[in-house]
């Protein structure tokens, strides 16, 4: 993609000779477009040596950059660009007062390349307009490039068509959005690049095939698709990490990803060891466990009135085992699929009104009200989280038999 553009641009470049005045005029127009595309007027300390940082600086600082590095390399055109900046400056601030933000200083050497290319924008602006207006219709595929200082020949060439194209696309406004789709696509196609290491970026936005996605870049941060995708990805990862931190006890106070990860791993290992240990204990104690109440309940015959309410209760159940096409709609289907004894189980578990009352009467005192969002009284042996209690009368015999069982009691406390 970039190589396809390069020969075209180089051809254009060879034909450019441009007088200074024409350059300035063009660059002024160009500059205005760029200015309109700058997102945040408030300037945060730019950590990235990006072109947007360049533009994000209020114009004087950018001019200072240009001026300091003495871009006389390409003789007239950078000087012309510097002139352009100066001219704009005249209205804004005191001409002589140029100060650079602190954050920019370490990035100067790389900025030289940016600024050079920025200077060339003005040169190519005029030449590019006819091509780019047609180029506005080109596939809005995101052109990502990284202006590395070690690839100078390609560097100055690439930004120009993109910059010219973007105003045509964007109509001078940047909206905030997360270009997730493209981000993912681009992530896959390109290798990982650290946006903070990006020496220069374009003021381009992440665009999808259709429609255009406007992304708002934070001030001083890179705006090319790579960086955006990276940033989105990093934010996702950070969010997940925070979630994990909350889950694992004692992880909230730890700072630093490595330690947190370490703690999480330790926690998972300890949980697995606990499962192993408990299963050994269960195996040892297993002959003594009286699980007959389960069989009793499971084998109870369901009532005639049960069938009607099963559809409603079965909402919480997906009776078919994990079929991918688990769009099993229809209550009758559920009723058919669900074996009868489990339907009874559902009924018992649901805790219809009177049996739940009986349940509470007999319940042990330290068994407090369990959250049971359907009925106010709350409880059956296994309270559902999301079901609607049917108004049916099931036999409370089965329920009462559970009451005597210690395991059942303890399970109640468990919930």
């Amino acid at each position, binding site marked *: 993609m970039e190589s396809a553009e390069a020969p075209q641009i180089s051809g254009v470049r060879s034909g450019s000779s441009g007088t200074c005045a024409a350059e300035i005029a063009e660059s002024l127009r160009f500059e205005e477009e760029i200015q309109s595309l700058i997102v945040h007027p408030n300037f945060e300390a730019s950590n990235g040596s990006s072109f947007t940082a360049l533009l994000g600086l209020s114009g004087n600082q950018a001019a200072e950059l240009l001026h300091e590095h003495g871009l006389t390399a390409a003789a007239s055109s950078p000087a012309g660009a510097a002139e352009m900046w100066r001219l704009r400056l005249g209205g804004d601030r005191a001409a002589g007062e140029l100060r650079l933000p602190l954050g920019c200083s370490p990035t100067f050497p790389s900025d030289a390349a940016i600024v050079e290319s920025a200077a060339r924008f003005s040169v190519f602006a005029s030449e590019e307009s006819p091509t780019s207006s047609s180029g506005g219709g080109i596939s809005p595929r995101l052109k990502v490039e990284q202006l590395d200082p070690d690839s100078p020949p390609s560097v100055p060439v690439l930004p120009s068509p993109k910059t010219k194209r973007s105003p045509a696309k964007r109509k001078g406004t940047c909206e905030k959005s997360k270009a997730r789709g493209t981000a993912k696509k681009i992530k896959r196609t390109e290798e990982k690049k650290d946006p903070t290491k990006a020496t220069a970026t374009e003021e381009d936005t992440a665009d999808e095939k259709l429609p255009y996605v406007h992304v708002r870049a934070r001030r001083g941060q890179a705006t090319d698709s790579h960086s955006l995708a990276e940033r989105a990805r990093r934010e996702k990862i950070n969010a*997940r990490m925070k979630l994990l931190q909350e889950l694992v006890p004692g992880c909230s106070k730890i700072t630093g990803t490595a330690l947190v990860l370490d703690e*999480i791993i330790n926690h998972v290992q300890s*949980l697995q060891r*606990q*499962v192993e240990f*408990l299963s050994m204990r269960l195996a040892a104690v297993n002959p003594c466990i009286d699980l007959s109440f389960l069989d009793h309940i499971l084998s109870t015959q369901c009532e005639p009135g049960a069938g009607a309410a099963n559809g409603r209760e079965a909402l919480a159940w997906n009776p078919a085992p*994990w079929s991918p096409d688990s769009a099993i709609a229809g209550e009758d289907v559920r009723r058919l699929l669900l074996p009868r004894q489990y339907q009874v189980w559902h009924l018992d578990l649901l805790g219809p009104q009177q049996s739940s009352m009986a349940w509470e009467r007999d319940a042990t005192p330290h068994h407090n009200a369990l959250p049971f969002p359907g009925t106010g009284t709350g409880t059956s042996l296994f309270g559902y989280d999301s079901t609607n209690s049917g108004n049916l009368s099931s036999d409370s015999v089965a329920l009462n038999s559970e009451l005597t069982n210690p395991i059942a*009691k303890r399970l109640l406390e468990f919930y």
Partner: protein
Amino acid sequence: MYRRSFKDTRSSLGSPNPNFSKPMVALRFLRALSLVRRSGLGACSPSYRARGIRRAAYACMAASAGPRRAWSRALLRKIRRRPGRGLRRPRAVIWRHRPVGGGDRLEVALRRLVPGGGCMEYCRLLEEAADYVKCLAMQVRLMQTIVDSASHV
């Protein structure tokens, strides 16, 4: 013999979607326990039974977590696969999206711990790990309750 119990557990009780269905896990697990007990009482040695119970625990956990979770699918696959499959025939499964690099030893360790973590992206891995930790904690609490109640009586 234990396989049968797992299959019964899985097929009969379905799988609700929400993850916080503690009653479901308890149900399954108890049922699995009873099945384990019924199938060959004692089964030669407590350690053998312990292993079976552990597998039952993981199976119940995975079954109640739902098929939407990658770890639960991988876990069930692992449980089902092991008995009787000595030779590793070439899997027809497309090993999708094997993650790049393995330099970070923490990440590698996490991948090994979480079932099915070998071929997930990093953020997906974190997501699955969170869910896995939640379910594991629930399962541990459940088993603790059962053991406590059984040993107190």
